């Protein structure tokens, strides 16, 4: 396994997936949830929450197919848009090249999962007593500082949970990769899940596939334990 370059490509792709997902689906979603919950109009808040949640209601397989056609080099919307903006030097086969395929899939996945995380953070923010924000406002505290000193500490539990779910989920990615690239081209977008599948069901090496499954199990459980331990130490009660 250590000598298999595709295994390392897959592992690194999973790490990329996890890093981007933590940035977008945890940090980004928390910031967006805070902005939405800070709006005065309840109606507007509802509309925005629903709008951001819509992609999460679409199955990953369908979303993958949808984005496959968006990325299609000859007929796809993305290259068409770039062409119409005069940026035709940027057009390319997003899923057909080694250096862009995995990033195209990761981008789709963020679009699909971002709204769900935002909704969960919005619920966590709603649970924070409004008196804390009122007191901060009386003290003349600005929006950014309120976010930093009230929202972030008091949503730490949800943040910890989202970190576990997001990171563990990033090491279990399968559907979207299979639908969009099957791990290609030249195995550049393989993740551990698809390499496990390909090793077992395409290359007929079930023993190796089982070994990859064990690696996925160990990685996800270790990451979850580290995060649980870290989150417990810094829990805030009110």
């Amino acid at each position, binding site marked *: *396994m*250590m*000598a*298999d370059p595709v295994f390392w490509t897959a592992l690194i792709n999973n790490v990329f997936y996890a890093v981007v997902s933590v940035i977008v689906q945890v940090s980004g979603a928390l910031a967006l949830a805070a902005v939405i919950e800070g709006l005065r109009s309840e109606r507007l808040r509802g509309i925005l929450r629903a709008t951001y949640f819509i992609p999460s209601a679409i199955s990953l397989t369908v979303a993958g197919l949808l984005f496959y056609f968006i*990325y*299609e*080099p*000859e*007929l796809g919307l993305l290259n068409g848009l770039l062409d119409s903006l005069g940026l035709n030097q940027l057009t*390319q*086969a*997003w*899923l*057909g*090249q*080694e250096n862009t395929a995995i990033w195209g899939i990761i981008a789709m996945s963020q679009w699909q999962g971002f709204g769900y995380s935002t909704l969960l953070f919005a619920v966590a923010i709603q649970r924070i007593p409004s008196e804390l924000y009122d007191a901060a406002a009386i003290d003349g505290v600005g929006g950014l500082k309120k976010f930093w000193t009230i929202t972030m500490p008091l949503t730490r539990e949800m943040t910890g949970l989202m970190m576990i779910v997001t990171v563990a989920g990033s090491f279990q990615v399968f559907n979207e990769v299979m639908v969009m690239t*099957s791990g*290609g*081209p*030249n*195995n550049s977008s393989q993740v551990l899940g698809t390499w496990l599948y*390909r090793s*077992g*069901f*395409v*290359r*007929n*090496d*079930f*023993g*190796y*596939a*089982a*070994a990859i*499954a*064990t690696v996925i199990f160990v990685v996800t459980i270790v990451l979850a334990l580290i995060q649980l331990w870290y989150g417990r130490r810094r829990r805030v009660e009110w």
Partner: protein
Amino acid sequence: MKRRTFLTTAAAAAVVTMISGCGSTAAAPSAADPQATVDYSGTLSVLTKFGGDPLQPYFEKIAKSYQKMHPEVKIQLIQETDQSIKDKTKTLTASGALPDVYFSWTGNWAENFVSGGLAADLSAVIGPDSAWGKTFGAASVDAFKFDGKYYGVPLYNDAKFMGYNKAIFSKLGISVPSTFDELLGVCAKIKSAGYEPIAFGNKDGWPALHFVQQLLAYNVPAAILAADYIPSTAKFDDPGYVKALGQFKELADQCTGSGAQSNGVLYSTAQQALASGQAAMYYQEILEFDNVDAPANQISKDGFGFFQLPAPSGASGDSKALEGAPEGYLINAKSKNVALAVDFMKFVTEKENASLLSSAPYGQPSTVLGAVDSSNSSASVAAGVEQINKADVLVPWLDTANVPDVADTWLSATEGLITGNLTPSQVMDQVRKASAGAK
């Protein structure tokens, strides 16, 4: 590959589970007799590769007719597409749920089921001297022969040809190229006229392998190619390999509209480009002819023609070899009713049903003698079958001729060749490494 004990244990457990699963449906030995008296009752499961339009209704019609004749029999169809059939078959095999009758390619794919004891020996009923066997072309029956025994029911012939738009060729004053270099010259002329010379979509990986295998047949002597399919004798050191891959790269770069971006394009998009008159050529299986040349398509008005991918001058392989093979069905040796399965497949290959298969909209040229002619098939399918019958040698598909991990390496490395990340020599390094690992 070093593994810790627990990893090995986990891997072994998976394999044991798979093997025990396969064995869980073992039937009494007498049930595997294809000549036994047919018991016209019970359920017969059939895994086909005819999922989706326009092929799906074929087996539905056949099953309906068969059930009408034998009301106590229920035919349970599992219809998969060309893309999904491999995974489905492997999953069903691993879970011990392989249907009574199941689709198979020739070559290593079928051989795996034979060596795994999952294909019934049909020599007594479909061997060349049997009444049923004599209804097929001899080469088609031979394609499923392993260790002197006959295991498969060949259903239709398939081969790869370059389809082209006659109106575009005529407008540009181009004649069908007779050498590979001429083809490259033709591409330049077509490109300068504003058409896509050869439509090509390699999202699924195998379209490139079809080009590569035909070029390998031209560049590598047949005996070496055959020895290299088997890991124990494989060397993959003939210079023809690198030469063939270089020719494919030239073709991908100079002749296809998508070039290095082809891995992002679906083969069906490429097929549509020829059908709609945007592209001058598209490399396709004979099974696609009727779909491309359908009356609603522009090419039907422009005129559809086809030719074999021309061989490079002076190549050291067989310049007359044609890439193609029959496709057919195996009968599960562990089926509880092998005789009923044989009877159903005899019904499928009766001349009337074979003719139906060969006619539009199905357009699958039957392997049954006399079932394909211009009265029931399109002119292009009938002409294609004639070329298949005339071919000196049929070369099997690259991904079914090689063992799975070597085939998978061919597929991924060729994708790298298209994008320019791998050179022909690097592709061969990867193939050699995979082959050495499979020994």
